[in-house]
């Protein structure tokens, strides 16, 4: 079949919402865009383990410690599902990791912010996972089958994350003056970076149109951001803490909250590597990988030895 009819058939499937599967023909650009998007997401999951892992050893009760461990472990699982989805497109996880370590590949910039108090564990679950869920739920219908299926698993597991975060916030907000202060301080620091998680405005976003056409993005950045603000404001009210935005007001006419201008200079700075923790996060990932090399080698060598013995015996 010539390229034109292959393309037509591909587009027809996309239009009819029929999933594309690994062995199906796909435009090279679709494949590349998917690899970029899925691996970026996978990287975000595993870099995202780090700020929260900071607090596992200091969790204030055994119940919280268990929840924190299970949650951070889930992020590892999510990274794994997504790397696996990527591997169906003909790339190896190791090569993707190399791109992460060299700085070539990006990950969600929110994880370059530090976790300074216990309340940050609450704020991350509530806001960061909340924002992530907004982003991810529509991707359960992404046009690429393995990606969509990975996202279904991720979303199913993710729902406990936001709840446990909100529960931490709620407990703090019902607690002592110091605890309330802690919660407010965490909201102050995480609010704007959370809004930035949805990416640049629609006007400034370069990939949106093509990705929407391909069904690997279902809503625009601004649409999702608005949804997040609308959902989160009443939750903040319930907690009795205030969102650090003077312009945040209900707009009767639009049926949405208006909110203030995002500091895009900060956003692009953090992406460029100038966030408070960029270096430390990548160093931690690199160290884990480099220090693990001898372990991976040993297991591979041992497996090879064993299979030789088995073959000789047969």
């Amino acid at each position: 079949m010539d390229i034109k009819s292959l393309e037509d058939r591909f587009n027809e499937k996309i239009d009819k919402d029929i999933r594309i599967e690994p062995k199906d023909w796909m435009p090279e650009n679709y494949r590349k865009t998917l690899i970029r998007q899925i691996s970026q997401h996978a990287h975000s999951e595993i870099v995202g383990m780090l700020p929260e892992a900071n607090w596992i050893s200091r969790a204030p009760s055994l119940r919280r410690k268990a929840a924190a461990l299970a949650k951070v472990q889930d992020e590892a699982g999510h990274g794994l599902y997504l790397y696996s989805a990527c591997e169906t497109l003909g790339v190896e996880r190791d090569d993707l990791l190399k791109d992460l370590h060299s700085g070539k590949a990006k990950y969600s910039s929110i994880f370059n912010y530090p976790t300074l108090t216990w309340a940050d564990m609450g704020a991350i679950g509530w806001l960061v996972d909340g924002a992530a869920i907004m982003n991810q739920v529509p991707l359960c219908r992404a046009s690429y089958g393995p990606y969509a299926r990975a996202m279904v698993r991720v979303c199913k597991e993710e729902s406990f994350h936001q709840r446990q975060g909100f529960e931490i916030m709620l407990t703090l907000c019902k607690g002592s003056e110091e605890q309330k202060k802690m919660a407010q301080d965490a909201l102050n620091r995480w609010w704007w970076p959370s809004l930035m998680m949805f990416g640049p405005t629609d006007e400034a976003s370069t990939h949106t149109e093509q990705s929407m056409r391909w069904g690997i993005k279902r809503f625009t950045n601004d649409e999702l951001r608005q949804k997040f603000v609308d959902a989160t404001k009443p939750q903040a009210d319930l907690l009795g803490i205030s969102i650090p935005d003077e312009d945040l007001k209900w707009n009767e006419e639009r049926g949405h909250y208006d909110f203030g201008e995002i500091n895009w200079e900060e956003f692009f700075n953090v992406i460029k590597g100038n966030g408070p923790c960029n270096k430390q996060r990548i160093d931690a990932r690199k160290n884990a990988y480099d220090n693990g090399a001898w372990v991976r080698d040993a297991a591979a060598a041992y497996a090879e030895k064993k299979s030789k013995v088995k073959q000789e015996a047969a």
Partner: protein
Amino acid sequence: MKNWPLWEIFIRSKAGLNHKHVGSLHAADEEMAIQNARDVYTRRNEGVSIWVVKSEFIVASDPDDSDPLYEPAKDKVYRHPTFYELPDEVKHM
């Protein structure tokens, strides 16, 4: 050094059901593949039995052959019970 191979993971979620493909992972050997599958894919009580198969051993049909493979079955309606008409009096058959 070579990377650990990729394995496809199939899980039986309850006694009596089929094993179903759930995803993949890396492991150095069979033993580890089962253990990793247990740790990765049954953390929430999702399974009672695990199959692992090295991904390279999966043979898949070619999507280009899908017309000759699957179209011919589509018009064989007589294979389905609804093809046959019964009087209303016969309630269950």
